[in-house]
């Protein structure tokens, strides 16, 4: 789909056409889910985050000034929805009767590739998001900064360090 088509769809969605919104959403669906899943670990939480983000995005489309920044804008909303879930989960920890599931188990199969979730374990939420946006979405430092509300310089200086350290981790695991 070319950019003109996308812009037209966004316009229609702005005017309340849910079907057009569904089509644009489908262009980013897998990437959005992947971002949420790597950031939140749990599939359920990731689904909630994406659904909430879609609702917010559809409602807030009227305020999107520049259709070219639709993708960044959508990711920013998604990132905020992920944060809300993390914050509410942290608060729930005070009440032990609530079952706060961390992540669904899956058997790591080293032969077909490294498991991204365990690779990201130990990183902070923001660091995870930086990695996912740069490695999988190919976002520039400026775009990442925009989405996460950081300064581009912060993103740049931490990105090199994070990428190098993740690479070392993968290489280390492969030689064990």
């Amino acid at each position: 789909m070319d950019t003109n088509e996308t812009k037209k769809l966004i316009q229609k969605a702005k005017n309340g056409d849910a079907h057009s919104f569904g089509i644009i959403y489908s262009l980013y669906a897998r990437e959005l889910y992947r971002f949420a899943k790597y950031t939140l670990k749990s599939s359920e939480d990731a689904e909630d985050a994406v659904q909430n983000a879609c609702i917010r995005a559809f409602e807030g489309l009227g305020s999107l000034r520049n259709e070219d920044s639709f993708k960044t804008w959508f990711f920013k909303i998604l990132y905020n929805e992920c944060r809300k879930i993390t914050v509410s989960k942290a608060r729930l920890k005070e009440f032990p009767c609530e079952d706060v599931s961390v992540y669904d188990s899956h058997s790591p199969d080293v032969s077909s590739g490294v498991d991204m979730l365990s690779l990201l374990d130990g990183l902070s939420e923001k660091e995870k998001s930086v990695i996912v946006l740069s490695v999988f979405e190919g976002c520039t430092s400026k775009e990442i900064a925009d989405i996460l509300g950081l300064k581009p310089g912060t993103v740049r200086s931490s990105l090199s360090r994070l990428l190098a350290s993740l690479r070392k981790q993968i290489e280390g695991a492969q030689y064990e």
Partner: protein
Amino acid sequence: MNKENMDFIKNSVKDDIVLPESLSAENIEKLVSEKAVQKSRKGKIRRFVAVGVAACIAIVSIALFPYERIIPENTPTENKTEESTGNAVQNNEEFKAGMASSYDEIIRSIRAYAEEYNDRIYFYAESDVLEEGMVSSDDSFATGTGTDTAVNGSTINKGQHGETNIREEGVYEEDIFITDGEYIYFTDAYGKISIIKASSDGSLEKTAEIENIPYTEETKEHSYYTGLYIKDNLLIASYSSYRVDEAYVRYAVSGIEIYDVSNKNEPVKVKTVALDGSRVSSRITDNKLILITNYGITQYFSCIDDELLIPSYYDDGIKTAVACDCIYMNSAQAEAYVNIAKIDLDDLSSEPAVTSFLGNVNETYCTKNTLYIMGYEYKNFYSDTAVLVDSAVVSGGAMLSSWNSKTKITAVDITGDKTQVKCSVELEGSVLNSYSIDEYNGYLRIAMTNQEENTLVVLNERLEKAGELTGIAPGERIKSVRFMGDTAYVVTFVQTDPLFVIDLSEPTAPKIAGEVKLPGFSSYLHPAGDGYLVGVGYGGTEDGLDGSAKISLFDVRDPKNPKEVDSIVIENCDFALEPKAFVSVSENSFMIPFSVWKSINDEDFYEKGIYTGALYVSAENGKLVRNNAYIVRCMEGLSRCTFIGDKVYVYGQCSGVASFSMDSAEFISHAGALKDGYIMTAVEKTADEILG
């Protein structure tokens, strides 16, 4: 190197993401159209409630602080007269400072505001929490304890070493990289301080390292230094520290530490003063240190405890709430405080004098007598009501450009024992940095951009509008400003750069005297002596920027007819555009850091990095002369440079310092890099081959 690592990681990782059924396009379409129907029924009522509640809060706030009634005991009754420059903001007795008379009043008002705040639709709590190790390389503060400075903030260097480029004569600023002529002091990307002996032969030796509170699992406190001053044997370091609890609530405390560095191998901490909040900035003038932080309180609205809603200061670790008659509630919105401490450097045992007021601090401009605080207010893009955004959310220029903004300017008198809030004003638009605002002969001149409209506003001592010039370069944005007496030089840009010369000899009627259009734009303007102005920034063509870096020399002797008389353009290059990166060597010569992004031979680019360093330029007889270039290869763009005697030094936050001979440009030595392999190496090519 990043790209290689990215590809490696991507190829190594399992690609096992399967979109669940619930997130299919059909289901999402159904979901959003159902919610849309629900909302259109409720929406109108909710918005009305929000507005209604906001109106009630406003009325309640006014009732709680009927400004006419609050007459604090220590409001001076005469106007202060000024000793030296006569530019003190007048103590306006009619200004309702709104000083609170009890802590109960403050708490009640904030709690009432908090209720309305929590009801607002689309509330997002973001924070600019910098994770450990992620200190931004964009952070920069000026440093320097120059002994002599000339007019208009430019520094004629009578000493033997570089000094921090300060905005206002006599008002010193911190920076990440400073020197006293024998030692070099800098902060690194991890927020630690290094002290390096810079010998006259160019050799470098690290003598000490200072780490702020190290992170431990127990305290979970992150802390990093942000800027430095050196004065005699006192090293003054500003720092920011914070911790985040399990509910992601953030507690930040920022301030200064003073170290006695008589023994350069063993710095001894002699004083700490801190304030609640973050985004610390500071000034030193008349041997008093002014410390400023921004303390956001919205995340404490849900705390049962009231303590966090009142700002505190920490004198050598002892916490004290700011006195309630030093807290100004002069705003209908209670989302953050600006905290200001004044520390007497001649008497470190004395208590700091602390004042707070409701608001944000995004830019500061400080004269010898007055501190001007600029705080931004954004239109939240999810709601229709303009809100004072939680100060922790503001992330700088990139966001600003797409949002409606207002700037609130608050003038604070910093003479005398206490700092006093004098008056404030709200203007449409925003300022670029402290060079956009200037106090001169009793007037405050400000160059602002509001979306795509640019204005030069002139305010009197009560911050009331005295004159205004609107409609400067409509559709463009201000990129740099320099005030020099009765003249303002303003650069705007959208595709090409007009430099405007604005005549301010009649403050009530500013007018454009002349202009010149040229490609690219300058981000920083500096006087070059004899009616010349130097601009440092980006090069371009008629169609916009072209990735080159440019230094322009403007002949502004005839205000009606400014001209670019010469330029230096380097392809695929960036100059460090932070004003503090600019180093005056003499009245008409300077050094500026640069980075060349396209390396000449690509094969070793990922191993060795880019070409980066400092350029030494003079302006002579209407021409720019490239005296020398001091270049290394390393993994980051270098951000500062300086000189001591006949040696030149370049610096990067990860890469440490490298030394060169000023005359031969020969690389001599290197020290202070972070351990992760950020070394600097000498270059094999000549400067001409690298720079073109």
